[in-house]
């Protein structure tokens, strides 16, 4: 039973990828024993599973995901948060205040206001209900400084790298703190603007060239070169 693609080939929706004894992986679908592509992306075979990394996709919430979002509305008992997804997230006042919430005493906008940026975790979500966020863990909560970068959500795993190798290298070489929202929003906080810019450029490069071979080497080299440039004067 054949497959109809080369490794990491660019495929389009409706393209026949494999026939017969294969399993439909991400961004593919099965119809009458045939596997087709659902999106624009790069296809790969993992054992018997036909997988695709989408070059264009949006973020669909998953419980436990760390995301970065913007507060868009202060409500009566919580906040509405835009997490760049088809579904708008909610953050409850009681989750932030960590004590019983009294609407008559607590002015929610003094805690978080429209336009504020937060790092949060998806606490609940299913087909019938919009995602609920939580910030009740270390490292989560309001973001006060740093730079924001948008990445196609499906590329985040490449920025993380195998067992986190890529991201820890970037952190180390740029002296930046980096939070990767799985919804494709990245927060970079460094000591200097130059450090932050370098980290951002590196992540952009990974996003653009995520499917190419020898990427890790090129990134290592880019980090080394640019670091020297900064230290020279």
């Amino acid at each position, binding site marked *: 039973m054949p497959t109809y693609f080369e490794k990491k080939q*660019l495929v*389009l*929706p*409706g*393209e*026949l990828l494999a026939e017969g004894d294969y399993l439909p992986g991400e*961004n593919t*679908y099965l*119809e009458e024993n045939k596997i*087709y592509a*659902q*999106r*624009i992306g790069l296809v790969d075979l993992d054992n018997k599973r036909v997988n695709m990394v*989408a*070059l*264009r*996709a*949006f973020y*669909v919430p998953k419980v436990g995901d760390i995301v970065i979002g913007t507060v868009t509305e202060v409500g009566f008992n919580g906040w509405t948060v835009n997490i760049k997804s*088809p*579904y*708008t997230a909610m953050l409850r006042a009681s989750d932030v205040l960590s004590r019983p919430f009294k609407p008559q005493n607590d002015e929610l906008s003094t805690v978080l206001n429209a336009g504020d940026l937060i790092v949060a975790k998806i606490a609940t979500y299913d*087909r*019938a209900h919009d995602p609920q966020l939580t910030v009740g863990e270390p490292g989560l909560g309001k973001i006060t400084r740093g730079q924001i970068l948008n990445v196609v959500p499906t590329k985040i795993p490449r920025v993380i790298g195998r067992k986190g190798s890529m991201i820890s290298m970037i952190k180390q070489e740029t002296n930046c703190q980096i939070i990767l929202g799985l919804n494709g929003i990245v927060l970079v906080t460094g000591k200097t603007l130059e450090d932050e810019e370098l980290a951002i450029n590196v992540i952009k490069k990974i996003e*653009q*060239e995520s*499917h*190419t071979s020898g990427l890790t080497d*090129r990134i290592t080299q880019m980090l080394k070169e640019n670091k020297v440039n900064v230290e020279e004067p």
Partner: protein
Amino acid sequence: MNDKPIKLIDKKGIRLDGRKADELRPLKLQVGVLSNADGSAYIEHGKNKILAAAFGPREMHPKHLALADRMVLRCRYHMAPFSVQERKSPAPSRREVELSKVIREALEPALFLELYPRTGVDVFIEVLQADGGTRCASITAAALAIADAGVPMRDLVVACAAGKVDDKVVLDLHDEEDKLGAADVPVAYMPSLDAITLLQMDGILTPNEFQQAVEIAMSGCKKIYEMQKEALKTKYMVVKDIEEKEEEEVEE
């Protein structure tokens, strides 16, 4: 019609614009032409010039239009006032309302509506210049815009019309053939799945001519499908080009 004995096809079977019976008008397709839309495309098909933009999936507005078990696709087909000879009022006409509906129903079969319940995808189509066959060109562009937005699809949808002109079944009618011809059969098609998603007809055709028209329209669709894929690839191949360039630099 009788007082205009214009020959639309000459003795050699050549049409007014120099095409053969089974020949398409020149086409140009571009993907990712609008930066604010989640996905977009532009098509020139003959003198048709049409923009399509897709937004979403996103929260439905107004909220009560959202469906608990599926995504909602909304389409708006609209003609610019200057797109035709005589200025068209910008208010949506009955024709535009109907076309918006059939275009939506031509695109829906390509989507996995059950995947993202309670959300909506909006597709906006603006005909900047009309030259016969706008609904087909609109569908071809709209499908590209939806794919460009990253919305999962079963296949691209591609559309093309056939018709009867001077007793002959021909492909891809232009404005004059559309107005003076005996019949017009627009078809939208998903080539990978061999599925017809839009089929309309006006005029009079024998059952055989009708069948022939559907077939010739489908063959036109298949040709446009290749151009559609090429247009998508052109946008998304840029990444690969960068890679190749780098490799060349290393060699030097």
